[in-house]
């Protein structure tokens, strides 16, 4: 089965760029733009890697992790992506269960490396 990546990102421009990238890298890609959408898509098929934007139109991206944990649908790994990587938001991401926090825009080579590392 191909490795499945779920992109949760409210900007269609950024989500599209990731879709092109991960498809070219051989991953199966799905994308969601809201907390509600993210939960639904993560529960529709098992997710290997979830890339999580924190500021979503209907709430904080970390809410998704909270709900998925409760329902037993956690992705194998989750990487948070934020615009500002201060230590407070970093801590809240790690506490919520993210494997790491990346500062947007993440250079693609670094992003692909991180994904491989956390799925290994």
């Amino acid at each position, binding site marked *: 089965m191909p490795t499945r990546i779920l992109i949760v990102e409210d900007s269609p421009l950024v989500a599209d760029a990731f879709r092109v990238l991960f498809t070219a890298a051989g991953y199966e890609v799905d994308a969601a733009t809201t907390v509600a959408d993210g939960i639904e898509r993560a529960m529709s098929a098992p997710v290997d890697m979830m890339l999580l934007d924190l500021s979503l139109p209907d709430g904080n991206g970390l809410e998704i992790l909270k709900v998925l944990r409760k329902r037993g649908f956690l992705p194998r790994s989750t990487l948070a992506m934020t*615009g500002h990587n201060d230590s407070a938001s970093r801590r809240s991401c790690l506490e919520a269960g993210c494997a790491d926090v990346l500062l947007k*825009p993440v250079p*693609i080579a670094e992003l692909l490396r991180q994904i491989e590392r956390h799925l290994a």
Partner: protein
Amino acid sequence: MSMSDRVGSAPKKRLKTLEAKAEEAQRTIDELRARDALKTQFLSNVSHDLRTPLAAIITHAEILRDGMLGDLNPKQRDSVSGIVSGGQQLIDMIDEILTYVRSASDQVTLTRTDFDITELVDQVRMLNQALAAKKHLTIERLNGDDLPPVYADRDKVKHVLGNLIGNAIKFTSDGGHVWIGFSRRGRDRDELVVEVGDNGRGIARDHYELVFREFAQVDASPSRPHHGTGLGLAIARNLVELHSGTIWVESELGKGSRFFFTLPLNPPRD
């Protein structure tokens, strides 16, 4: 009308006029504050909104540059690399504006911890090593091994050091020298003075204050050799002042500059 009434009416009238003027001045101040807050919010929103499409542009350009959608010839690759580095430079400038807006507003909070300032200085030195090596500059930490921990917001102090060391590198010519040193002052030697010095082009005395003002560069002409947002030192000043510290410069044109800022050491605890 009695005598005393006649005497009293003129000062009373004057007082009324003054009160009215004071009220009007207060209204103007309130209005200006409200407008300033609005402008700050606007700047913050715009900066944030600029960042998102730019991030998409950079990612697309990187996908092309790295040949993930097929091979490029060398000229095409150079051109696409130009998009990536131009975009990255824009992101850095937007981030600087966002940091400035945050540092200047009331919403910023300090997360203070005890930490080893020399370890932080060494980390920032390492981060700037590549930039310095390009200009054959040395960055040296002069002392500090016996210092007690400072009690401050580590991220913010790192930002201050980054801006000062970055500037020192930028305004020092090839083969120059940048250093970081420490001294203590105050009645209980409880204040740390951090110095970031260089033997670069220096700053004229008339410009000592100007350099800390936002959007100020001593040479603001379009042909100036050093570009940037002109916010680096304004941010440093705001972040130091949030710690109730002070920041200043001593310099001589053609000889170099020494920037100093203070941080609390061993503070009284609650």
